């Protein structure tokens, strides 16, 4: 537990994230998000490889109509570039910048990586279907008291508690 002492107080971190979220809404009218930027990367890639396909496919069409502007040049992409810079800065200051695999005590590295891949896959699909991920939909949605934020909260965390028991070997 010594290591966690170097982490910031959870409530203070939360309050400050809330302040930045207010800033995001005040200046740009946006919530804080992450999966949207990953999607922008996917859209930009597909658009770059085959624009004609992207124009017709329903998933892409609305996002590639503007011919002059790359779908990657969006607010969220810049926000996530900032997230990357901020995370590196914080980790560097706290001396946590090192290559490692963090996992539960009872599984192997390979297993951890395979499960991480599967988890990422599911999150990729779920965030698209659910119109946003934990930060973009649930946290930012709760900030403006949107019903969808609270439904997402119940689904993600409620669902998590229901299934946690079956995957306990991964973590404890």
């Amino acid at each position: 537990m010594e290591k966690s002492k170097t982490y910031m107080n959870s409530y203070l971190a939360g309050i400050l994230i809330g302040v930045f979220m207010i800033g995001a809404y005040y200046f740009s009218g946006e919530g804080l998000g992450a999966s949207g930027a990953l999607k922008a990367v996917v859209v930009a890639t597909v658009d770059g490889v085959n624009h004609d396909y992207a124009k017709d496919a329903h998933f892409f069409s609305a996002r590639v109509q503007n011919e002059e502007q790359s779908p990657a040049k969006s607010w969220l992409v810049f926000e996530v570039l900032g997230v990357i810079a901020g995370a590196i800065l914080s980790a560097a200051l706290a001396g946590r910048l090192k290559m490692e695999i963090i996992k539960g005590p009872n599984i192997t590295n390979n297993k951890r990586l395979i499960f991480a891949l599967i988890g990422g896959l599911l999150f990729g699909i779920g965030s698209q279907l659910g119109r946003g991920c934990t930060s973009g939909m649930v946290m930012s949605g709760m900030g403006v008291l949107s019903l969808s934020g609270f439904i997402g909260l119940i689904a993600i965390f409620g669902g998590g508690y229901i299934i946690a028991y079956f995957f306990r070997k991964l973590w404890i």
Partner: protein
Amino acid sequence: MKKFDVIYVGLLLVGAFWAFVINSANDEPIDRVQPCDLLDIVSQTDKYMTTDELARRLMSDDPTLALIDLRSKTEYDKYSLTGATNIPLENVLDDEYVDIINQDIQTVVFYGNSSDLAAKAWMLTKRLGYQNSYILKGGLNRWVETILRPREPQETASRVEFERYSFRKAASSYFGGGSALGESTTTKRLSAPIKRKKKSAAGGGCD
């Protein structure tokens, strides 16, 4: 829980309580402009549109112009400006006109016989936080004086004044000035209510 935890959570509770108190104490609509802001708005100088500017925009058939005639129906029927919509001052707040007056696509220009009526309507819209509304400076009286019956400047006047005069003369003939004002020579184009649109909608967040 540690000491700092209690402080931070306490802060959140205080904030929430504040929100609760002001929400229950005060049911006024939240999008109204506060009096101190109103003072700033009232003292701003760009609330007027000059008759020259209006003439220029009318002549270029500017589609972003929404002219509002605040006088009574009888006065409006006698004479009005091209394309003006008649909304007597007492009806300005009616629901049916809100889409015309509160929108940010077109420039709303209020006019009456003088600046008087328009200033009242303009105040109301600012109090409600509407954007993009202007007062026709001097109203119809000034319109007649400057655009329909412009006076030739003195020989000694500056070049600028002469240029303005020639513009006004052109405008005068365009608007059929000089003729009797009793009859409306202008065609009326009552614009249909325009739905509000934001200039650029916020993006999709995480979506």
